[in-house]
């Protein structure tokens, strides 16, 4: 194999998820009626925003060698808190601030704080009390959703304040503002992972926690920060969801954890920790959103939707596994 061929192959393998995305978009554009249009592509980008943002926090924790199953419920809790405070109907309190624009940063800060608080609880239990991350965050997945039901009484908040809701309606260059926010998050956190000591340390801790500790890295502090960030980012995802649906229901966000996990794995983040980059995760989220949109447009019987969705995700993950096998052989 010539060096040039090898370099090309490695480039393709490193960015396989992007090539998969392009291939999937091309196939669906040719075979699914009404798929190939700007509006549909904008929808795919918008619809990937919520799971995408959630997947950022999840990816950070997985890269650090741990797990966070609570992100979906944290998103639901943040959405409900936002709804209760700033919706004008249902169980919404209809809080209004003067000037109006203040409601955006205030509601965002509250959503981030709610998420960060749960993240901090998770982090402390896992890092300081040395509990298993899977169990702690699984428990959080359950109790946080329970808190949503308890806070809301099973009821909905709707009619989000226009001062906040406008974010869900605005577009820049035909792409919804919500999507731009998600893209900005990916760019910022990709830079943090690639260019800051925090990012490098997170990778090192995920690769070998003991070695990172012996190298003088403050492992406990960085891990707790990772869990707090995961919670806060899940809170942001919930805030965006509340904006998207102009309110909140007790089951908002249910089912997103699977998609976030799938996106993280498809995006090349190793579940063992220490390996992965966020751009790939974004491509994974876009891929899943593209598949979901195709299913919506194909008009398949409802009974088969879930089976097809799971099958396509499995295919994407299998391709990613194949990539790793080929990379190992090249090495």
């Amino acid at each position, binding site marked *: 194999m010539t060096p040039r061929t090898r370099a090309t192959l490695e480039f393709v393998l490193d960015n396989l998820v992007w090539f998969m995305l392009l291939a999937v978009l091309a196939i669906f554009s040719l075979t699914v009626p009404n798929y190939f249009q700007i509006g549909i592509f904008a929808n795919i980008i918008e619809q990937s925003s919520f799971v995408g943002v959630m997947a950022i926090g999840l990816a950070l924790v997985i890269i650090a060698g741990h797990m966070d199953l609570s992100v979906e419920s944290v998103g639901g809790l943040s959405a409900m808190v936002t709804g209760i405070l700033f919706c004008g109907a249902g169980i919404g309190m209809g809080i209004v601030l003067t000037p109006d624009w203040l409601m955006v940063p205030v509601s965002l800060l509250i959503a981030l704080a709610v998420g960060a608080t749960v993240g901090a609880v998770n982090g402390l239990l896992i890092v300081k009390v040395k509990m298993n991350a899977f169990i702690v965050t699984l428990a959080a997945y359950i109790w946080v959703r329970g808190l949503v039901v308890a806070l809301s009484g099973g009821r909905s908040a709707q009619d989000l304040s226009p001062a906040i809701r406008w974010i869900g*309606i605005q577009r820049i260059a035909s792409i919804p503002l919500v999507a731009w926010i998600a893209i900005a998050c990916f760019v910022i956190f990709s830079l943090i992972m690639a260019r800051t000591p925090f990012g490098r340390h997170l990778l090192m801790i995920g690769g070998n926690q003991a070695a990172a500790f012996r190298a003088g890295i403050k492992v406990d502090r960085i891990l707790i920060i990772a869990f707090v960030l995961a919670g806060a980012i899940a809170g942001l995802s919930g805030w965006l969801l509340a904006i998207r649906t*102009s*309110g909140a229901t007790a089951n*908002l966000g249910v089912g997103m954890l699977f998609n976030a996990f799938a996106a993280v794995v498809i995006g090349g983040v190793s579940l063992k920790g220490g390996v992965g980059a966020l751009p790939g995760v974004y491509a994974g989220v876009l891929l899943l959103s593209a598949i979901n949109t195709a299913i919506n447009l194909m*008009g398949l019987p409802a009974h088969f939707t879930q089976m097809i969705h799971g099958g396509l995700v499995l295919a994407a993950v299998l391709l990613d596994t194949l990539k790793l096998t080929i990379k190992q052989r090249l090495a």
Partner: protein
Amino acid sequence: MKRILLAVIGIAALAMALISPAFAQSKGKVYYMVPTLLDEFQTGSVSALEMFLKQVGYEMQTLNADNKTDVQQSQMNDVIALKPAAIILAAVDFNALKPSIEAARAAGIPVVEFDRQITSTPSDFTSVAGTVEIGYVAAGEVQRLLTERYGSVKGKVLQVLGDPSDPYTLDIQKGFEEKMAAFPDVTIVSLPAMQWEASNAGTIVSDQLLANPDIDLIFNHAAHLSVAAVASLEAAGKKPGEILVMSSNGAPVGLDLIRKGWLQVEVEQPLYAQAAAVAMFMDKIVGKQEIKPGEYDVLGLTGTLTIESWGPNIRLPGAAITKDNVEDPAFWGNLKPPASAVTSVE
């Protein structure tokens, strides 16, 4: 330490003594097996049943199955062991609970089906609006709305289902499409909002507005799905009434959307009447007395009670809520429980 322990035991004993007289006045404890508390109708049903049962002298305890069939089956087993006066069941899976119902009745515990009709095995009482019938009412309203718009029943309808594993939504779909089959000029596009999750409904509407820009009407199988659907319409630049929207179950969110002009019809499940009917017949159910067929006044609605192969079945008519009658306090979505107490049927 010993004194503290004795004091705690003493207080607990006193508390139990105070509670006991309350139990002595109750006719018995009824367990309500609710399928989920993530839905406004279900959470409303808990309050309504508790209130009406208390009025006729029964206590109620609720167990939430969290939409899991196996959990509800376990709960049924546990409750059977407690030998309650009766069990009220809103099944997660209509057919999977059949053995549990039979086990309860074999143990001498009457079983009441609430809202979700189980016809595969006898129960002691069933109180429903009828999910298939909700589909019928919805179809009637679609026919009316399309006729008002076009002069005849024609156009394109986007039907947003709930979770496709939920027989409740499948029954509504069945009833709706059965009645709409008589109108070949109406195209129906049906898609499921997985796990009844609102943002999935929003996604469906966003995509379908592009794939089928000639959609005339959106029919959501729950009011909370309409909230997200309307948000997507708003984001797409639509105005209230430009695309007709309707939903079913009668939740407060649906009535709010009617008031704002986004929703044209909400097909209500008469939650208060369904719950009141259970309470009205509870003495007969617990006492295993004969329940006579006929028409009964249930909170002003005419309930038709028939004896079916699955037992006594009272059907209460669901109403179509529009802007003309949206303020009617009888609709549970206005959250105004009836002022007068229900009484037991003689």
